[in-house]
Structure formats: C-alpha cells, structure tokens
C-alpha cells in the first residue's frame, strides 16, 4: 500500500472537487429522503383517523 499524494500531482482541486460534489449529492439525497419520511409520519400522528392501510400493520393475507 502506498499513501496517495493528496495534491494528486497538481490535480487535487479537480479530483477532490469531483468526489466532494458526489458526496454532497449523496448526503443531500439521503437527508431529503429522511425529511420527507419524517413529514409523512408526523402527518400520520396528527390525524390517525385516516391512517392508511400500510401503517396498520395488518397482513391481510388472502392466499397462502
């Protein structure tokens, strides 16, 4: 194993810029998905009367 040269032979800005951009995109996607889910589950709590079937936990199995 050799420790890579962090300056990437002068290309550091481009190489790390690419990976940093990718990381930002991934973090944004994961965080926004969490947020979306949180909002939905909160909406559930506020009005359990219209609790959709997906959250009732029933396994309405019709066939075996």
């Amino acid at each position: 194993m050799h420790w890579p040269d962090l300056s990437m032979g002068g290309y550091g800005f481009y190489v790390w810029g690419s990976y940093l951009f990718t990381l930002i995109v991934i973090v944004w996607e994961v965080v926004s998905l969490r947020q979306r889910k949180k909002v939905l589950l909160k909406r559930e709590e506020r009005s359990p009367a219209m609790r959709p079937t997906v959250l009732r936990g029933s396994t309405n199995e019709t066939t075996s």
Partner: protein
Amino acid sequence: MNLYKYASPTMFYPLAGKLIPWFAVPAALLFAAGMYVGFFIAPTDFQQGDAYRIIFIHVPAAWMGMFLYVLMAIYAGIGWAFNARLSSMMASAIAITGAMFTLVSLVTGAFWGKPTWGTWWVWDARMTSTLILLFLYAGFISLQAAIDDPRRADRAGAVLALVGVINVPIIYFSVQWWNTLHQGATIRILGKPTIAAPMLAAMLIMLAACWLYSVAVVLSRLRCIILEREQNAARFAEVNA
C-alpha cells in the same frame, strides 16, 4: 407464499422497509472498498497523472444515469400498459436518483475535462446527449409534479419516459458515430478492456456500490410515495364521505 401479493403497494411497503438495510450497508462498504482500491492500489496513469482517478466515480455515475433511465422507462411502461400502480410508483421513485447520477457524471466530467482538455464543457455529441438525458429526467419529474391525479401523472410520465429512451443508445454510441473529444469506451462488451486491472477493479466496485445505493434510496423513496398516495386517497375518501 404468493409473490404476486407484493404487487400491491400496501403489501410491498413493509417488505421494502425490511430490504433497505440489506442494500444500504453493503453499498457503504463497497464505496469504501472502491475508494481504497482506486486511491491506494491503482497506479498513477502515465498520460493523465492522477487526474484520471475521477474515472472511478465519473464512469459508474454515467452508467447509472443511463441504466436507471431505461429501468424507469420499463417500469413506467409496465405501469401504463398493465395499469400496475406499484410499477408506476417505482418509475417515479427512480427518476430523482437517475437524474442525480446524470448530474454527477456531467459535473465530474467537467472536473476531468478542465485539466485534460482545457475546458469545462464542449458541445460534444456525448456530453450534449447526456445533458439531454438530464433534461428528460427533469421533464419527467416536473410533468408528474404538475398533474394532480396520480394515475394521469403516471400515464403522462410513461409516454415521456418511453419516447426519451431513444436517447440512451445515442449516448452510448455517440463516441463511435460522431467525431468527438470524449474518449472511447474503456470497457468493451466484446474483447479486452483497455485499462489496468486495479483501475478496472476500482471502477467495477464503485459501480456495484452505486447500484446497491440506488436500490436502497429508490426503495426508501418508493415507501414515501406509497405513503403519500395512501394518505391523499384517505383524505379524499374522508372529504367525500
């Protein structure tokens, strides 16, 4: 066990939840492994120096952008043809992730083009067709967002997605069909790859990581879409009771 029951969104919801960690955890491990092989084992390129290391994210991201588009179009088409709700929801869940990978491929390509070609962007066949791919994703997402009735939105999206599929082979073969600045294929379906083994290994590991990551986030978004539609349907039923 009847597998067909999972075609119902309400049955698929808990299954998707159980599946997510089985994709998310290996994705994280493979990303780490791919970066390790790409930066610690793969040698410096004799022509491009270390700038080439952008390839480990650029190529997998570009592939994912194309694969996911085709997958999205297939799901949208099945949802449309067979009136399968879950399939249409899957298409909507894929769109954002596909668009993001396409964006990553364009941005990392710019980061690679600047030091090697001397420019961030050229209106080259491959880059232009990839930009069109991003616009197709954006069109699909905004078209669906603009239509209130989810089933009508699914059908409209399916038409757009299926028409746009023609762009994918154009991207793929653009480097052969047009005289272009972009380099040719590194991996060939037939014949040997034109790349050193550790470089190839890093790229393939990153590709596998991108696939697993995509499955995890798409399933997670699919769960949100199922929940949203269920909630909206419940509210609609309540108002009209």
